[in-house]
Each structure stands twice: as structure tokens, then as C-alpha cells.
């Protein structure tokens, strides 16, 4: 028995690894392992106030902090009968775009691109790609600035709270964000073309299913109370348990998910495959230029999907800023209208659909359940790992190459192991 391992998987958020067990030329096992310690977050919030809940649950993950906060707020506010006013809704959209921009640019340019250009890190890339790395970092910095302005801090800002925001940013600051977003667009388009020009190997292509929030009104977006599936179904987010079927897996502290017994993909690639034909402007042009049937079969296209989503986010920001600044009065926090109820909040975290489900009693959290995108992608990722390893064994590939290819596949999902609490071992018999 031979075991090829990658442990820890680097350039991902959290602690994970990949194990491949081979018996001669037969695969015994391919695992995407999650070593991250168990935190039992769902049980930590029981008995807590809604405000305490959002403070705790955003800490599930630093990179998806605002998606967790947003999903929690949507779930809690449904349960407590709160409807936030338009200014708060728009500011939440802006903060969420900031996070999408930040996380996508970190992943595409700092974590994933080094694989394709043959470097161990983005820092090492600076020698040849100094200008590109610096521009990517400035894009990320700008996104961090949006997160800081809207949420009160780059990471775990407490400003977005139950019923609205503690404080609204000054119009001047928002208008400056609008200006910068327009300036950043040129590099984002260049970046998408850079990623679009990369070769994507086709030896592990295979069909899968895609899921994402349905934003409604034939638009592209990152929130929705319904979930769109690539088979044409549209399902209310309250049915998330049927969609995700979480089950325990011994090699992972993250629960694995399947839909109708089969793995599925969530994340930027799912959003592009399900909603990309709704894109307009530069992002629409890029989508038309690069999208092809192989996007439905190969997870590595997620990198390009994220690069195009960056362009989309930059095109959205000026519109949202305009809609915020024209509302002069900063609304007060909206108070709960009931202290008992149930609510499911669904948002698109950068790496896929995120659900926060609450049951409230006496104004406190009675029960909570969170379903995390990386957990939903694990089964799908393992499917492609297996496919890639099968093909590579046939070609008598070296262990080193197998290990590298598996890492590249895992990383393409932009796994967030902190979130999933949940990367390669190769074993030969």
C-alpha cells in the first residue's frame, strides 16, 4: 500500500490535507481531510442574545466574516420579525461586495495563481510579475477598505448588527469608494484576461450539479431567499437541509454534503454557470468571451469565475454607493416585533452558499444550525480528485505530479477550512 500525502495543504485558510491510498494501480481511497479542531459553534450560541450571536458566528471565519454575519442577520431578523430599511439593505450589499472582492482577489492572485505560473507563493512571483502582484494587492487593499468602512473593522467588524447598522459611513468616504472602484476596473479586466489565458487540463473533466442563491429579477447577485440548481429547480432556502444532506465523515471535522445522493458544486463557478448569462457590461463581455461547456465539468474554472466576479463587483459598487448616498437620513436600529420564531438566512459567501438557521425563544437563540460552503464542496472535490488520480495512474505519473495536481484541484475550490471547521496523503499497497 502506498500513501501520498499533502499535509498541511498550504495557501488555504485553515488546517487540512489530502490523502491518496493506492493498491498497485488501484485507488483504495482519496480523501480531502479536514484537521481543523472542532469548535462546536452551533452550541456556543444557544441561550445568547441576537447581538452576541452575530459577534460569535462571524468568528467562524476571518475571510468570510461578513458572509457569516450577513447570513446570521438574515436568519435572526426573519425569526424576530425585523425588516431593515433600504439604506441598511444597500450598505449590507456594499459590505458583502467588499468581502467578495477581497476574498476573490486574495484567492485568485495570492493563493491560486502561483500554481499556474510555477511559484511557491505570490511573494516569490514578485520577481517576474512584480507589477501584477502589486496591483492585485492594491485591489485587495481597496476591498479591505470597503469592509472596514462598512463593518467598522477589516475583520470581525461589529457595525452591521441586528436591525441595521450601529453607525453609517460618511457620504464622502463612500463617494471615494465609488471613484476608486472605477479606477480598479482596468486591472481587474486585465487580471481576468490573464487568468482566462491559462491552460486548464481536461483529463478529469466530468459533469456535476451547481447550486447558488437566486437573486431574482434576472440579475446576478450574492443573496436570495431561493436556491437555484443547475437542473432548473428553484427551491426555497428554508429547504436547505434537503439540498445539502449533511453527513458525518470520519476523516473530516466538516460534514459532507450531497443532493439527491450526488455531489454538487457551490461558489463562483456555480454562480457563473447558473447566472452568468445575466451579466452586463465588462463582466458580461468577459463571461461571453470565456464561458464554454467545459465550465460545467472542471472545477479549475472557478479561478476564472472569481476573476470575472471581481469585475462584476467593481461594476456594482458605484451603483450601490449612489443608492446609499441619496438617502439622507440614517435610520435607527429596527427593533424585533416578536421574541419567538424561526428563520433561515442564505447568502453567497465567496466560496459558496452559506445557511444560518435559528429558532428563537424569549428573544434568545434556542437552536442554531449552520451549513457551510466548503462542507458542501468536499464530496464534489473528492470526486474530481479521484478522477484525476485515476487518469494519472494510467499515465504512470510521478507521485510528485499527482500530489501537485490534487493540491491545485483542492485549492481551486477556494476551500475555507476555518469555516468548514472543518489537504494530500498517497498510500500504495
Amino acid at each position: 500500500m502506498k500513501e501520498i500525502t499533502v499535509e498541511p495543504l498550504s495557501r488555504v485558510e485553515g488546517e487540512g490535507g489530502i490523502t491518496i491510498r493506492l493498491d498497485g494501480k488501484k485507488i483504495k481511497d482519496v480523501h480531502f481531510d479536514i484537521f481543523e479542531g472542532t469548535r462546536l459553534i452551533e452550541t456556543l450560541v444557544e441561550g445568547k442574545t441576537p447581538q452576541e450571536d452575530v459577534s460569535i458566528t462571524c468568528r467562524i471565519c476571518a475571510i468570510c466574516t461578513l458572509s457569516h454575519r450577513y447570513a446570521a442577520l438574515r436568519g435572526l431578523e426573519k425569526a424576530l420579525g425585523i425588516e431593515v430599511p433600504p439604506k441598511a439593505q444597500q450598505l449590507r450589499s456594499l459590505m458583502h461586495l467588499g468581502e467578495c472582492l477581497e476574498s476573490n482577489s486574495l484567492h485568485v492572485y495570492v493563493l491560486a495563481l502561483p500554481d499556474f505560473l510555477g511559484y511557491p507563493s505570490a511573494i516569490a512571483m514578485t520577481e517576474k510579475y512584480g507589477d501584477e502582484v502589486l496591483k492585485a494587492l492594491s485591489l485587495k487593499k481597496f476591498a479591505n477598505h470597503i469592509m472596514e468602512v462598512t463593518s467598522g473593522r477589516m475583520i470581525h467588524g461589529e457595525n452591521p448588527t441586528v436591525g441595521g447598522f450601529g453607525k453609517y459611513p460618511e457620504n464622502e468616504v463612500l463617494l471615494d469608494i465609488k471613484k476608486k472602484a472605477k479606477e480598479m476596473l482596468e486591472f481587474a479586466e486585465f487580471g481576468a484576461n490573464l487568468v482566462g489565458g491559462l491552460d486548464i487540463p481536461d483529463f478529469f473533466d466530468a459533469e456535476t450539479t451547481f447550486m447558488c442563491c437566486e437573486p431574482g429579477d434576472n440579475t446576478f447577485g450574492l443573496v436570495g431567499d431561493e436556491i437555484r440548481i443547475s437542473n432548473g429547480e428553484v427551491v426555497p432556502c428554508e429547504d436547505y437541509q434537503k439540498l445539502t444532506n449533511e453527513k458525518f465523515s470520519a476523516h473530516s471535522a466538516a460534514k459532507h454534503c450531497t443532493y439527491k445522493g450526488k455531489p454538487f458544486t457551490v461558489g463562483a463557478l456555480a454562480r457563473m454557470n447558473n447566472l452568468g448569462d445575466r451579466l452586463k457590461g465588462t463582466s458580461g463581455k468577459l463571461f461571453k468571451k470565456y464561458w464554454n461547456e467545459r465550465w460545467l465539468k472542471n472545477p479549475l474554472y472557478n479561478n476564472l469565475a472569481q476573476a470575472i466576479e471581481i469585475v462584476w463587483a467593481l461594476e456594482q459598487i458605484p451603483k450601490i454607493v449612489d443608492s446609499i448616498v441619496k438617502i439622507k437620513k440614517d435610520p435607527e436600529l429596527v427593533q424585533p416585533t416578536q421574541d419567538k420564531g424561526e428563520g433561515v438566512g442564505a447568502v453567497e459567501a465567496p466560496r459558496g452558499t452559506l445557511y444560518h438557521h435559528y429558532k428563537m425563544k424569549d428573544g434568545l437563540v434556542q437552536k442554531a444550525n449552520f451549513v457551510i460552503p466548503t462542507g458542501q464542496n468536499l464530496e464534489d472535490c473528492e470526486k474530481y480528485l479521484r478522477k484525476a488520480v485515476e487518469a494519472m495512474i494510467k499515465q504512470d505519473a510521478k507521485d510528485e505530479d499527482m500530489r501537485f495536481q490534487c493540491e491545485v484541484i483542492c485549492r481551486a475550490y477556494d476551500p475555507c477550512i476555518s469555516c468548514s471547521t472543518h489537504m494530500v496523503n498517497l498510500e500504495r499497497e
Partner: protein
Amino acid sequence: MDNKKLKVGLYGFTGCNGCQLTIIHTEDRLLEFFEATDIKSFSLAKSDNDDSELDIALVEGSICNQEQGSHLKDIRKRTKTLVAIGTCACYGGVQSMELGAKGWDKRLKKVYGDNNFSNRTPIESKPIDVFVDVDHYLPGCPINADQFFYFFANLLQENEPIFPDYPVCYECRLKENDCLLLKDILCLGPITAAGCGARCPSHNLPCMGCWGPMKEANFTSEFDLLKEKNFSIQEIKNRFRIFSGSATMKPLKKILGEL
């Protein structure tokens, strides 16, 4: 590689990765950080990592399984100086809320059922100094980048780093915010270490205590004040325990006569 450069390793155990990300988020300063040191390990940012001897190990996250405990002990053996960065490493973080040992078993079952983990042995989350000696503590959820680089520059120059020994209230007053406690809002500013710049109170929101307790914090006076404002013992306990586990719960339990 310049031999005089200090060999540094960054390690993340259980948490949200926010402290390492705070360092990555500094962009320009990140490049200087890599320039000024010989980074031996930083698996969030690069893939050519090794387990060699270190001058400084920066450790994020709390310890949630036995394997992490062993890894941490190995890091301790290899490094001259070990620094806990972030509230999880310093005090345990949100996952170390003191809910009782028996409670933890029950909670594990609730989330994962009767399943066993094949590759890790989970334990109730603990701060890192339960396992190894820690030379410096840099709290924050997440850490503040300015505070980190100030601290790190001191380490590089072999100066003893100095941390604020005053509470969030001090920073809050400098910002001329209205006191939230005076408005009967449950705020932990008086017992929480400064360093964040009073972020939350500056947004009209109470301090949740994410920097952990200030040295020599007056827990009794905070407790009495909150009681006087009609907060129940349960409400006070819930708020005290969120970020710092036993560091805030022990003093509270003493006040309540539960210890």
C-alpha cells in the same frame, strides 16, 4: 539568504485565521515583513515551508485536539521565543467559552453524533499556555496590525515589548464617545484590554470583550455596576464568557462564590 535575519514561523491552530490574515492584509508592510525576516513557515501564505529551528514562533488559534497539542510542543522545542497572537491563542477565544467539561462532551455529541474521528482526537478548546510556556501575549480578535508591527519591531531590536495596561474605556474617552454604560447598555469596556481603538463603542455598539481582560481589571466593580443596572447574573455570565474562557470566568465565579 542573509544569516543575520531572524528565523520566523507562523502557525495557525483552531480559530478563524483572522490574525494571520490581519498580517497578510497589510499588503505593503507584508512585503517588508518578508524582507526583514527569514520566514521558515507560513502555510497560509506560501507552500515552501519547513520545520527547522526558529528564533520566533508566532502562534494563532487555540488547541482543540491532542495532535495540535503535540505539534505545539514540537514548535516550542524548535523556537527561542514563542508568542501567542490573538485572543484564541492567549485565552482560548469563543470556542473556549467555559461551559463545563461535561457540557463539552454533550455538545460534541450534539454536533457530531456518536461518530468517531479517524484522524484527530478532539478535546475541549484550550489556550496554548495550557500546553507550553509562552513568552509574550498579543491579544485581539483579530490582532491589530499596528500593534503587531510595533510589537514585532521591538522583538527584532531585542527590546522588551510594551502593551497598553489600560482598558478600552481609555481609548473610548480619547475618541469622545458617549459612555454606553451610562445609557444602560451592557458594555465590557472597563475590564477589557485596550488596543482596538475602541472600535465598537465608536460605532455606538458595546465592547464585547474581544481583546481579553486588561491586566488588573476590576471585575468586581464591573459586576456591581451591571447588577445595579439590573442585568441578570445569566446575562452577565453570558457576556463575560464569550471571548476569554477562564480568564474572565474565574474572577466572575469568585465574585459569585461559585469557586
